């Protein structure tokens, strides 16, 4: 179930994050939030590591971390695409946007991240941007009034940006 052993650097990063908070039960959520912010997911081995450091059981830490949808034990893509399916977005046709993205990226309800760890497509209940429905977020950026065409355009841009980044690295 658990992925392969983590690199030592993960534990060093975790130590640094843990040192920002008092070693007590209630530091669990801020610590794992910071870890997730660093790695875009919460490596299961680090959850156990943090739990031991702050003096709680792994079971208790898992109970908390699995309760919140926000924590992910699986690696996420570099670009996390959150498609809002709240009432306003749903009636203004968010479903075709979602369908397009899933089809284009070869994803589904159970498989949310592409194998190259570039894109993750998630459905969220409300982004609080109902006036811009249907709304979508790419990492921290909100994109208003989405259509499958606009989504296609967006994917193209993101892929081009990646391509450029790779070329820069090579040169």
């Amino acid at each position, binding site marked *: *179930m658990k992925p392969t052993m983590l690199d030592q650097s993960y534990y060093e990063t975790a130590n640094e994050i843990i040192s920002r908070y008092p070693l007590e039960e209630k530091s669990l959520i801020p610590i794992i939030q910071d870890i997730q912010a660093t790695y875009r997911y919460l490596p299961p081995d680090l959850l156990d590591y943090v739990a031991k450091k702050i003096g709680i059981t*792994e*079971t*208790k830490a*898992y*109970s908390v971390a*699995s309760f919140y949808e926000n924590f992910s*034990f699986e690696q996420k893509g570099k670009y996390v695409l959150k498609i809002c399916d709240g009432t306003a977005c749903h009636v203004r046709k968010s479903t075709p946007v979602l369908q397009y993205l899933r089809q284009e990226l070869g994803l589904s309800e159970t498989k949310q991240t592409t194998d190259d760890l570039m894109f993750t497509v998630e459905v969220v209940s409300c982004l609080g941007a109902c006036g811009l429905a249907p709304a979508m977020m790419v990492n921290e950026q909100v994109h208003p009034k989405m259509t499958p065409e606009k989504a296609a355009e967006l994917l193209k841009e993101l892929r081009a940006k990646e391509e450029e980044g790779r070329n820069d690295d090579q040169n």
Partner: protein
Amino acid sequence: MGFMTIDGQRVEFTNEPNVLTVIRNAEIDIPTLCYHSELSIYGACRLCTVEDDRGKTFASCAEPPRDGMVIYTNTPRLMRYRRTILELLLAAHDRDCTTCVKSGECHLLELAHRMGVDRIRFKNREAKYPIDESSPAIVRNPNKCILCGDCVRMCDNVQSVNAIDFAYRGTSTLVTPAFNKTIAQTNCVNCGQCRVVCPTGAISIKTNIDEVWDALADPNTIVVAQVAPAVRVALGDKFGIPKGENVMGKLVNALHRLGFHEVYDTTYGADLTVIEEAEELLERISSGAKGPLFTSCCPAWVKFCETRYPELADNISTCRSPQQMFGAVIREYYRNPEINQGKKLVSVSIMPCTAKKEEILRPESMTNGRQDVDYVLTTTEVASMIRKSGIRFENIDGESTDMPFGIGSGGGVIFGVTGGVTEAVLRRLQTGHSRVEMDRIRTSGVRGDDGLKELTFDYMGKEIRAAVVNGLGNADKLIKRIQSGEVSYDFVEVMACRRGCIMGGGQPVGAGPRTRKARAKGLYDTDVNMQIKKSNENPMVLALYEGLLKGKTHQLLHRNLGSTEN
């Protein structure tokens, strides 16, 4: 302190922790699924909801009593609520009740009958979770879980183990180990207390009944049983016999009828343990070894200590538990071809405990790499075998246990209750055995219900400090105090289950305060009626040291530490 009115009755209360207790003291059995007086209050099942004179409803378990309260416990509205709650729980429950192991003592089913649930208006959720049979002690079936959280709080609040907890949210909520591990992959100590409080069949005993039936039916085997002290004062619960009554005689008869060739008493094994452990204690004290000697009779405690406090593993007695000492002796005895008649020995032990099922598999308790005890049956499993056979247990006569291992001492019998091991060791260290001396030990503070008892006694002019602790949560607290240097002891008896083996994870469930008391009294009364009080005066044990055990005490009676071979 004050008065409240419950269903028109004026009721006095003093220091009850909640309205629920006041209601129950007024002889109204208000239903609950998530309330246990020894666990923290959870308020999840809402079955104990009551109504006040202003029509406000609240869960009585989570409400402190106040003077002048006017409460109704059975209004039509409350009855409707309770029915709906039960219907919803049953709709999310795997209802294969006819073939469920919990059938007959399921608390959910009992309440559904009591509340008159005769149909369920909601569609049943389809069973979808795999059953976890990885543990040698317990089976976890999440499809029968109603999320009352009793097991979670038992494992966490009382035992400080926290092998399972709630995970996920909403309709996906599940009681599970972290990351969906199996129970066997966790720090579970197999104490079975989760199963004791589980109101449904979601956590049950991993049974070995079928293997034992097969052995009994095989003409090429000799099947022998050893019966632990705590079994005899609890088995009667299953057959309507008064609580705490010692039914050892009937049990021996029933086991003979089931086909067991010989039935021995684990009290004999306990006597061996007392002798070996007292010896070890004296050696430790005279050599000035650091830290206390912890008892090793309780396998749940041994596993807890090994995983949580590996640095203390060397302080655990090297003695095997009574079951394992006796198992090794029985195996050795039956190696003699005159005794085994060319047949294969199947050694069964009958225990109040689920952790004993794991103990027999532990390499350090094996002799020459071979498992000594083949199967452990809990009290509950033996009761179901007796039932299946049709034997009218309540009507059959008593029989005595078989020789040469049928005689035990009073010191061995009281092993089944917290403080018993310590009391037996004290008797062993006491030179005389007059009534006065026995009484002095009895009243030294070694007896009683408390989670932690402390006492000192004098041995040849030296003061020996002992602690008796039961419940792993209490043990955990004590160890922290020992490690901080706040307290120090020479001898610490630990039993993983609150009140000791009489309340073990394999015992008949539903034992409240009266039953607990009756079981402890049952063992102490048995001790009173035994001619031999001290383990080291058991003539059969002494004969064993002169015979079979000569030169083999270490091989047969102690754990093979530091190696898994031999």
